[in-house]
């Protein structure tokens, strides 16, 4: 199986290099057979990488430890659910996932454009295959997922415990789907510039890919935040971690691109800006992959660290140089076809939105790469923390939400005062009204949150008004019932109303961020059973300790120490929270020295306990004081080692396992019978659930925007339009 996988990757590299050459020669000589052969090379690449990916997945699912990567990242005790995702926790597997996804999207877009964009598609093919050749090259020469071991170990090292979370099963593929999907508009934009075909066609052709990239990247970012909140044990969802920032960067520039590209589609304006944005987004996607895989910046993602720096830096350098060269040498064809009609128009708001989004991206970029910059300049690596990021991003994001509230009510080209007064009345009432209503609730010392609530209400008012007006207009023409009119309105204008739903979701999300950041109350307390801590009116009493051993397939997976916390508010019972902390056995499982102590020297993960609701989340994590058990553990280890030495070869491995189990049970009993104090982190955080709900609404809106229109409806609408235009022309 490994041999076939290796061969598939070598063929993938060969076919990608071949495809680059024939596509470029075909484009230069205008030979369609060469161009078609290049396109077939993309299909072949997709088939080969699919085969390689399936082979690797099968190896993980079968726990085939002859594969080095399977032995290092999975084990027989890893649940099947996580075995399937363990492949992309490895360097090699994640690079293969990148190539696999890229080849799928490349095949899909080139199949869709096989009879269109004949000038641009060959160059786009060459660029997509160039990416394919790069990643296939890494997989063949630097990080082969099909490397085998001379002697297969009986057990693997297992998946990093931190990654054993449902979000982590989906988070990396979502990010990679986003990164690789953005390669499509990047390739077509570069192709359009090379071919000097910078009209709106490449935008139309790749629009769904750009939206899908934005959609998947957004899901990946949100899942990462959810994982951080519920798995990492510090109680937050966003820490400005370099790798998370790296995924946010292309999402920000991609968001800017999705807005500004509408101006090019409608008005033929901002061509240089759009080309620059999409090219920058493509570069940032590769940079994001590089940051995860290189470990160049210290991050909670250090499990992804490796030494692929030189090839990635070379690729990024080539992409930047090529992009700058293309934009500067194509200035003549990138001239705007129109000028801005008015400063008070949808175009102007989109422009402002773009400036803010790029401003946020710049802040995030600078803060993320500051350690490298400072090291280069001063020789000392120093980093900036969350307060630095918040200082600049908070006002920019408030401005962004405000702009997303006023943009939809302004018409394209120009807005008159009379219609503006009418359009802004109710959204302004919602926004200003919210600010006034909140005044008595102690918002003066948290002005940023207060303004965000106002901006969020403005957006909600705008979206509700737009839907109401649209339904009213529809009913005036068709006398449909309100629900039918609403569905018809959205069906016929998916892009517009999908966008409004996205705005609403983003507003809810940021209101949740503002509320939870500004009004959070957190406390760390060291408690013995019977003692209590008060947080935000809640009383949490440490009722009793808990301890257990989790096993999988007859092997000890981890030891879990936890606590039962009784929660009351104003004397009334609210519920019971059961946070815990899992301690995983050592990777090599030899248990040679100090077998019991080594359980507490390896990885440990928090199992957070939460009482989540629309108003407030009560969040807890526990750090059991396992140090208090040191004496007991040392005594057990000494006795165990002595016993094993006396038994010599007469003791079977299964008996050793049983003895370790007995010793661990004795440790658990010590913990529950005579519990040491445990440290608890308790956080009462308002409206965190709004973040997840807002995210879901954003993604629903994105699906509405991406959904293909009913064929007949658009044809009929366009046919009517064509007839009207034709009549005016005198052709009908």
């Amino acid at each position, binding site marked *: 199986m490994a*041999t*076939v996988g290796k*061969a*598939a990757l070598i*063929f993938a590299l060969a*076919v990608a290099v*071949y*495809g680059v050459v024939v596509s470029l020669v*075909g484009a230069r000589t205008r*030979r*369609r*057979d*060469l*161009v*078609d*052969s290049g396109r*077939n*090379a993309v299909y*072949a690449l997709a*088939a*080969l990488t699919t085969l390689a990916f399936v082979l690797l997945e099968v190896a993980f699912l079968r726990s085939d430890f002859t594969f080095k990567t399977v032995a290092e990242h999975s084990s027989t005790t890893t649940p099947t659910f996580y075995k399937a995702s363990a492949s992309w926790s490895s360097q090699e597997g994640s690079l293969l996932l990148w190539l696999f996804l890229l080849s799928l999207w490349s095949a899909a877009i080139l199949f869709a454009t096989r009879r269109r964009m*004949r*000038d641009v598609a060959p160059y786009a093919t060459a660029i997509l295959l160039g990416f394919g050749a790069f990643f296939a090259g890494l997989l063949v020469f630097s990080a082969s997922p099909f490397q085998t071991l001379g002697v297969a170990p009986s057990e693997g090292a297992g998946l990093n415990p931190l990654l054993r979370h449902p979000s982590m099963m989906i988070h990396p593929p979502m990010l990679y789907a986003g990164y690789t999907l953005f390669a499509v508009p990047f390739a077509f934009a570069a192709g359009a510039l090379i071919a000097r*075909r910078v*009209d*709106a*066609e490449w935008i*139309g052709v790749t629009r769904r890919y750009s939206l899908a990239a934005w959609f998947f990247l957004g899901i990946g970012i949100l899942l990462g935040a959810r994982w951080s909140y519920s798995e990492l044990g510090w109680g937050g969802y966003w820490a400005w971690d370099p790798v998370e920032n790296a995924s946010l960067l292309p999402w920000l520039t991609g968001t800017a691109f999705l807005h500004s590209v509408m101006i090019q*589609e*409608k008005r033929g304006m901002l061509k240089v800006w759009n080309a620059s944005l999409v090219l920058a987004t493509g570069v940032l996607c590769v940079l994001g992959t590089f940051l995860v895989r290189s470990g160049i910046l210290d991050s909670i993602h250090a499990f992804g660290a490796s030494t692929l720096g030189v090839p990635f830096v070379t690729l990024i350098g080539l992409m930047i140089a090529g992009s700058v060269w293309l934009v500067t040498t194509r200035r003549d064809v990138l001239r705007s076809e129109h000028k801005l009609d008015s400063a008070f128009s949808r175009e102007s708001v989109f422009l402002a939105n773009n400036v803010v989004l790029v401003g946020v991206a710049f802040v995030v970029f600078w803060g993320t790469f500051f350690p490298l910059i400072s090291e280069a300049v001063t020789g000392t690596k120093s980093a900036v923390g969350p307060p630095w990021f918040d200082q600049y991003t908070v006002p920019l994001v408030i401005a962004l939400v405000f702009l997303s509230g006023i943009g939809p*009510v*302004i*018409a*394209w*080209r120009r807005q*008159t005062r009379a*219609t503006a007064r*009418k359009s802004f009345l109710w959204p302004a009432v919602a926004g200003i009204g919210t600010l006034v209503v909140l005044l008595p609730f102690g918002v003066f010392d948290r002005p940023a949150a207060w303004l965000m609530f106002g901006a969020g209400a403005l957006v909600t008012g705008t979206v509700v008004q*737009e839907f109401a*007006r*649209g339904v009213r*207009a529809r009913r005036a*023409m068709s006398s449909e019932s309100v629900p039918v009119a609403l569905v018809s309105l959205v069906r*016929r*204008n*998916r*892009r*517009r109303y999908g966008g409004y739903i996205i705005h609403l979701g983003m507003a809810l999300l940021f209101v949740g961020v503002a509320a939870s950041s500004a009004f959070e109350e957190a406390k760390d307390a060291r408690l013995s059973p019977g003692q209590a801590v008060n947080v935000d009116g809640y009383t949490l009493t440490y009722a009793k300790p808990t301890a257990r051993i989790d096993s999988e397939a007859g092997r000890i997976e981890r030891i879990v120490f936890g606590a039962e916390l009784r929660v009351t508010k104003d004397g009334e019972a609210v519920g019971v929270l059961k946070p815990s902390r899992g301690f995983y056995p050592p990777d090599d499982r030899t248990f040679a020295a100090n077998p019991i102590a080594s359980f507490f020297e390896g990885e440990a993960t928090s199992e957070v306990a939460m009482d989540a609701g629309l108003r407030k989340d009560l969040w807890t994590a526990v750090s059991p004081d396992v140090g208090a058990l040191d004496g007991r553990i040392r005594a057990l280890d000494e006795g165990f080692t002595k016993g094993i030495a006396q038994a010599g070869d007469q003791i079977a491995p299964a008996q050793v396992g049983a003895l370790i189990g007995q010793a661990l049970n004795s440790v658990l009993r010590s913990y529950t019978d005579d519990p040491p104090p445990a440290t608890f982190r308790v956080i009462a955080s308002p409206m965190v659930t709004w973040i997840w709900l807002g995210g879901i609404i954003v993604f629903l809106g994105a699906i509405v925007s991406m*959904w293909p*229109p009913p*064929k007949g409806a*658009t*044809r009929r*609408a*366009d*046919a009517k*339009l*064509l007839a009207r*235009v034709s009549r005016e*022309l005198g052709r009908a």
Partner: protein
Amino acid sequence: MDVVALLVIILLLGAVVAAVSRPLRGGALDAESADASRVADLLAARDAKYREIRDLELDHQTGKLQDGDFKVQDRALRAEALVILRELDRYGADEPPRDTPA
């Protein structure tokens, strides 16, 4: 290396070579003329213009544009659409509008 793996690899290689060389076996084909590219540009511009006209109508219906402004802008957009249609006529292109989302 076992025989099955070797056979699979040979089959894989054969399939890949057959797939990428297929267009080459039919003899060299010239790409379409520059006219075809221009027609593609025009069709994309026409579809974008239709979308713009529909958006303008919706803006008017939802009260963002007064009647006077709407008429002026609608007339301008239709004139721009006519220019595109005239040029498409010159190329003899009569492709129906593409199914692009509104």
